[in-house]
C-alpha cells in the first residue's frame, strides 16, 4: 500500500517536470516563430517604406503657348519643319510665366524643373492636333526626376541636394499653387526601362519574366512529372536508379550560378542560341527547377495509398491505366504545389540570368521568346546599382511588385493544396 502511494507521489513529481519541459519547448517554438515573423516584418516595412514613393509620380502643369516665333515653326503639318522646330523653348517660356520672379539667366534652372522628355511629348501632341498651333493650352508633364525626388521627400535634406535653393523655392511655390502635384505612377507600369528615372517602368521586365516563366513551366512540368512517374512507378529498384536518385538530389543543391555558366557554355556557345533572350533563360531555369519538381512529384506519388493501386489492379487495370487513371489524378495537387513553388524560386532567380546576358538595358518590352529581354529581379539589380536616388526608390517599388507576384504564387499553391487535396 505504501509502495503504491510512494509511486503515485513519484509520478506526480515527474509529471510536474514533464509539464515544465513541455512549456519550455513550446516557448522555444513561439520564440522561433516570433523571430522569423519580426524579420519578415522588418523586411516589409523597410521595402514598403522605401518603395511606396516609387509608385508615385510628380507632374508639373504649365500654360504652354504654342507661339510660332518662339518655336521657329509655321506649319505644324510639315514634318521637315517639325523636326527642326524648338519644342523646349515654349516650355521654358511657360515655366517662366508661371514663376514671375525668374529672369533670363534662369533659363537653364527652369528647364531642369521639367522632364527632358516633355518636349518630345509636346511634339507628339502637336503632330496629332496641328490646330493647336498659336493657341495657349494647359498641359501636364512629368517633372524632372530631381524635382520628383525633392517633392516626395520634402524636409529631408539628403534628397534636395540636386536642386539649387532657387529651384527649391520655385518648386515649393508651385506645390503651394497646386501646379506641381504627385499622383499614382502609371508610367511605372506601362513603360520599359529608361535612362530617365521618371520615365522608367517595369513593363519590359514583367513581360520578360512572363515569357521566361512560360518556357520554364512548359519544359519543367511535363519533364519533371514524367521523370517522377517513371522513377516511382516503372523503374526497377537497382543501383542505376539509386544513382539517378542521389544525383537528382545533388542537382537540387547546385548553386544556381553554375546553371548560368552551363547555359552560357552549352546553349549560347555550343548551340549558338542568341544571348539575352527569354528562351535561353527559360531553359536554364528549367534545369534549376527540375529537381524541385521531380522531388515533390515523387513525394506526391508516394503519398497515394497503395490500396487505391490495388483496387485498380484488382479490377484488371494495366500498369499504365493504374498510373494515368488513379495515381496521377490523386498526386496532381501535390505535383502542382511543388511546381508552383519551384516556379516561384525561378521567378526570383537572378544569378544564372546575368551570365546568359539577360542583364541588358531594354527599353521596349520583348514581343517574343527570342527578343532581347530582362526579368524583374535583374531589373531590381540594375536599378539598385544606379547612383541616382530616383532609381533606388524604383528598385524598391520593383521589389514590391516582385514580392506581390511571389506571394500570390505561393498563395495559389496553398489554396490549391487545400482545395484539391483529397482525403480517404
Amino acid at each position, binding site marked *: 500500500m505504501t509502495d503504491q502511494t510512494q509511486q503515485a507521489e513519484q509520478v506526480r513529481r515527474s509529471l510536474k517536470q514533464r509539464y515544465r519541459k513541455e512549456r519550455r519547448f513550446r516557448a522555444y517554438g513561439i520564440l522561433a516563430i516570433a523571430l522569423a515573423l519580426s524579420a519578415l516584418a522588418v523586411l516589409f516595412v523597410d521595402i514598403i517604406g522605401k518603395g511606396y514613393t516609387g509608385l508615385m509620380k510628380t507632374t508639373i502643369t504649365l500654360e504652354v503657348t504654342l507661339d510660332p516665333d518662339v518655336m521657329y515653326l509655321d506649319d505644324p503639318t510639315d514634318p521637315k519643319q517639325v523636326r527642326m522646330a524648338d519644342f523646349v523653348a515654349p516650355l521654358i517660356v511657360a515655366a517662366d510665366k508661371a514663376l514671375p520672379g525668374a529672369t533670363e539667366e534662369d533659363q537653364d534652372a527652369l528647364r531642369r524643373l521639367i522632364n527632358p522628355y516633355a518636349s518630345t511629348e509636346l511634339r507628339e501632341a502637336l503632330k496629332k492636333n496641328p490646330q493647336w498651333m498659336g493657341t495657349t493650352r494647359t498641359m501636364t508633364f512629368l517633372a524632372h526626376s530631381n524635382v520628383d525626388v525633392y517633392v516626395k521627400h520634402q524636409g529631408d535634406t539628403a534628397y534636395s541636394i540636386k536642386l539649387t535653393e532657387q529651384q527649391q523655392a520655385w518648386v515649393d511655390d508651385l506645390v503651394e499653387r497646386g501646379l506641381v502635384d504627385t499622383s499614382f505612377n502609371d508610367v511605372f507600369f506601362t513603360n520599359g526601362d529608361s535612362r530617365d528615372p521618371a520615365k522608367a517602368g517595369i513593363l519590359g521586365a514583367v513581360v520578360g519574366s512572363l515569357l521566361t516563366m512560360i518556357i520554364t513551366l512548359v519544359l519543367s512540368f511535363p519533364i519533371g512529372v514524367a521523370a517522377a512517374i517513371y522513377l516511382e512507378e516503372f523503374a526497377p*529498384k537497382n543501383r542505376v536508379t539509386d544513382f539517378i536518385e542521389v544525383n537528382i538530389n545533388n542537382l537540387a543543391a547546385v548553386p544556381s550560378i553554375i546553371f548560368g555558366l552551363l547555359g552560357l557554355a552549352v546553349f549560347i556557345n555550343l548551340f549558338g542560341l542568341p544571348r539575352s533572350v527569354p528562351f535561353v533563360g527559360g531553359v536554364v531555369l528549367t534545369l534549376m527547377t527540375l529537381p524541385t519538381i521531380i522531388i515533390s512529384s515523387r513525394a506526391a506519388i508516394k503519398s497515394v*495509398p497503395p*490500396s*487505391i*493501386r*490495388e*483496387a*485498380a*489492379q*484488382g*479490377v*484488371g*487495370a*494495366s500498369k499504365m*491505366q493504374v498510373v494515368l*487513371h*488513379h495515381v496521377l489524378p*490523386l498526386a496532381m495537387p501535390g505535383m502542382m504545389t511543388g511546381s508552383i513553388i519551384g516556379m516561384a524560386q525561378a521567378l526570383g532567380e537572378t544569378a544564372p540570368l546575368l551570365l546568359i546576358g539577360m542583364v541588358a538595358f531594354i527599353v521596349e518590352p520583348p514581343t517574343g521568346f527570342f527578343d532581347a529581354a530582362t526579368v524583374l529581379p535583374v531589373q531590381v539589380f540594375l536599378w539598385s546599382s544606379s547612383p541616382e536616388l530616383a532609381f533606388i526608390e524604383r528598385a524598391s517599388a520593383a521589389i514590391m511588385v516582385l514580392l506581390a507576384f511571389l506571394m500570390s504564387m505561393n498563395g495559389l499553391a496553398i489554396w490549391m493544396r487545400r482545395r484539391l487535396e*483529397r*482525403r*480517404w
Partner: protein
Amino acid sequence: MNTMNPSISAEAAEATGQKAAIPVTEDRPEDTVIEEGKTVGKPFIDDPKFKLRNVDVSYAGDRAIKNISLDIGKNQVISFIGPSGCGKTTFLRCLNRMNDSIDICRVTGQIMLDDEDIYTSKRDVVELRARVGMVFQKPNPFPKSIYDNVAYGPKIHGLANRKSELDEIVENSLRKAGLWEEAKDRLDSVATGMSGGQQQRLCIARAIAVSPEVILMDEPCSALDPIATARVEELIAEMSESYTIVIVTHSMQQAARVSHRTAYFHLGHLVEVNETNKVFTSPEHELTESYITGRFG
C-alpha cells in the same frame, strides 16, 4: 515429395541447414510438427476451378507458403482460416497474381485456372484479373463517384459500347451487391462519403461489374460492424450460385456460415481441408481442433 522424416519441422531444417527435430509439447499445440506438403482431409475434388500443386511462396528467401496443393471447386465458397501470419492472405493473392507488384516475392509451383497455368510468362495479368476479381480487407473505393467506381472496370475492358449498356451494368452490379436501393439516388456523389459497410458492398459491386469467374475476398468484413457483416455474408451466399468465391476470414463463425469448404492454414502449411461442417464438427488434425476450439489463434 514427402521424403522428409515426419518428426522434423521444416523451419528448423531450414534454419540449421540440416534435419533437426523439435520436441512436441502437449501444452502448446502451435508447436505441433506439421509434415510439409501433407494435408489431411479432402484437398482434391472433381472438376475444380483452380488446381494448385506444390505452391511455394517466399519473400526474399523466407518461405511464407510451404508446398501447398489444393483444389478450389467451381461455384463454391471456400474459406481460408488460421492464426495471424499463417499465409492465408499471401496464398489468396497468388490466385490473381497480386503478389507480382512485390519485388522480393517469388512464387513457384503450379496454379492452374481452368487447366491453364496462370504463372507462365506469356500469361496476361490484366486478363487474369478480369477473370479473378478481388475484394480487399479495408474498403478501398476510388475517390470518385459511386457510378464511376462500378463503371471503371467495364470501361477499361470495353465491356460496354453505349452509355445505356454501361448504366445497365452499373445497376445490375449494384443490385447484386444489394446496394442499389441505397445508392440509386446518389450515383454521382463521392463513394468515400458512404459508410464502411456500404463502401465494402460497393467494392464487391465493382468486382462483379467485370463479370469475373472467381472473386477473392481478403477478410472482407474485418472492418465492418455486425449488421454490415451480415449483409455481406448474405451477399456471399447469393453470389455463390454464379461465382467461385475464395474468402479469407478470421471469424470461424463466418467461415461456418458462408462456405462450402474450409481450409485451415498454419505457419505456411495447409493443414486440413474438408467440407465446412466436417472441419467444424469433426476435425481430423489436432491443430485444427485446437484452433477451432479456441485453444490458440
